[in-house]
């Protein structure tokens, strides 16, 4: 490698670091708005928020003897990035499944945008504006990336069986959807995969595809189940940028994430699950120091030591 290119790369790295520093020093408008809104909120589990987009009450889901979810009360503040954390098997994905209608709770009620949506089927919840992605990605393998995205658009006239036969009635809308999908593909670095079957994509690319597809629905709230799992670190940075940009545009984001650095850097609010219950919630800095959270993460570890006969 020549010195020139080396110097260039170093300069680029420095620029990136500089940018990140600037970024840390100066929170975005959305972050400031979120912090302001949550300013007076105490960090106790189940605390009320000033403007909740989602309110869940007494949600319970058991699998045989396993208590997967048992949430007394949880509110998600509109226009924030809320992170769900907790050890493996804490019930985060199950909670997602319940509120999006993919699984039925044993009991509980929940409301979205002030409307009770308890027991509604998943497609109606999605249409109401709450869309989720899956921890185990569900790429539509024999559809191209572009088709995957286009599927996400709502209110498509050509999706009616009879209307689909009248191409002129939906051609213009289709062109519009195509260009919107292409923009998103570009945003998620997937343009080169435009006409490839989603089945040929790598695990990380599928994560990106799924998130882009969910955004095609133009939801008010998006639930991301480990969106960064398997995505390369450089792309993770830009993905985080996108997520923050979405929040700045006013979307509400709930994400499940295990990487503490990621959580601390982007979330406005953190909710910690353990054994199906919300054991703590608060601002990232408070959560970092919360003894219940530390216990939850290290508890299994300790228990192992206690049981160790030696």
């Amino acid at each position, binding site marked *: 490698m020549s010195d020139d290119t080396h110097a260039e790369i170093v300069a680029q790295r420095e620029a990136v670091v500089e940018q990140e520093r600037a970024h840390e020093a100066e929170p975005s408008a959305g972050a400031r708005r979120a912090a302001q809104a949550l300013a007076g909120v105490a960090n106790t589990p189940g605390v009320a928020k000033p403007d909740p987009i989602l309110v869940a009450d007494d949600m319970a889901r058991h699998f045989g003897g396993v208590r997967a979810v048992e949430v007394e009360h949880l509110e998600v503040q509109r226009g924030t990035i809320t992170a769900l954390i907790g050890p493996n098997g804490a019930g985060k994905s199950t909670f997602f499944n319940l509120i999006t209608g993919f699984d039925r709770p044993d009991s509980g009620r929940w409301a979205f945008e002030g409307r009770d949506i308890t027991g509604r089927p998943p497609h*109606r919840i999605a249409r109401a504006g709450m869309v989720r992605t899956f921890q185990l990605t569900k790429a539509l*393998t*024999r559809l191209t990336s572009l088709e995957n995205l286009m599927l996400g658009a709502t209110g498509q006239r050509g999706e009616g*069986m009879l209307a689909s036969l009248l191409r002129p009635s939906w051609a213009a809308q289709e062109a519009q959807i195509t260009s919107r999908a292409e923009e998103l593909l570009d945003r998620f670095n997937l343009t080169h995969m435009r006409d490839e079957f989603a089945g040929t994509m790598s695990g990380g690319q599928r994560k990106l595809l799924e998130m882009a597809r969910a955004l095609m629905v133009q939801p008010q709230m998006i639930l991301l189940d480990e969106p960064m799992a398997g995505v390369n670190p450089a792309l993770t940075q830009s993905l985080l940028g996108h997520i923050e940009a979405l929040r700045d545009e006013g979307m509400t984001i709930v994400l499940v994430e295990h990487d503490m650095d990621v959580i601390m850097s982007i979330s406005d609010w953190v909710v910690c699950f353990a054994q199906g219950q919300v054991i703590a919630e608060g601002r990232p800095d408070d959560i970092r120091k919360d003894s219940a959270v530390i216990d939850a993460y290290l508890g299994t570890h300790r228990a192992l030591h206690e049981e160790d006969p030696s």
Partner: protein
Amino acid sequence: MDILAVLSVAIRGALGPEAAIYALAAIGLNMHFGYTGLLNFGQVGFMLVGAYGTAISVLSFGFPLWAGVLVGMACAVVLALILGVPTLRLRGDYLAIATIAAAEVLRYVYRSSFAEPVTGGVYGLVQFAGSFYELNPFSGPLELGPLRFGDRALWLMTVAWGITLLAAVLVWLLIHSPWGRVLRAVREDEEAARSLGKNVFAYKMQALVLGGVLGALAGALLAINSQAITPDAFIPIITFYLWTIMILGGASRVLGPIIGSIVFWFLLTFLDAFLRGAMSAGWIPGGLLVPSDIGAVRFAAVGLGLMLLMMFRPAGLIGNRKELRLDVR
């Protein structure tokens, strides 16, 4: 043995009305399985209600034939709803079991003695399509070298292939639309489609109805073709011929069922004529094969051909190789 005669018989089989009718029923099946991923193992049941709906309307109610065909198609809508409402919310195998059972139950009901006043029981119904043949515009046979089609066959072929091609065009239009995109998404992953706000149940129901109606139309044509139907013409093996045809041609391709049906009927009639010719020419030792075995042997040969095809062209004759490279499920 006259190989030219054997070939001309085979070509007549490949282009004859049966090939068109089976292609049409397989287009319906392709709508179910190829595009929506629905496991329908009772397509013959839809053909049965189509055939009997037509014949009974004409004979018992004095409807004109065209109205009878519409009644047959309406029966398929009802059958699809009965099958779909309880099973389409469940896993795919429930529909498979329900369809295979329903087709057999229907056959037994139609052949039972209590239904005999209407359905003719095991003897079936005859002479209900005279008005169709009265419309025949062909006055003489068509002869192309050794190939000869009678005027009656020509008229049927025109109508049956015409309808089959129209059905293929309809499917093409539907599949290359946002509606078709949702359907294919449902085939790939129902939950993903749901998560994007698509009413998966409704789409599966629409596909089941549409494919069933195409099956019923094929059944009606089958009845018109032979001017005689019996319940025992609608045995489960017909469904499996249709699956063979669809897979042979290439599932989830618009022309797959048509190519599949032409090849299937060509092979079947070719083997039949060839074996008969070979036997009468004394090429096959008498102890090895008797004429009554020919029917079984030709199907065994088609089965063998299908096995080889699956090994070397698993996506069917016109299947999409790109799709094949994907490890689906």
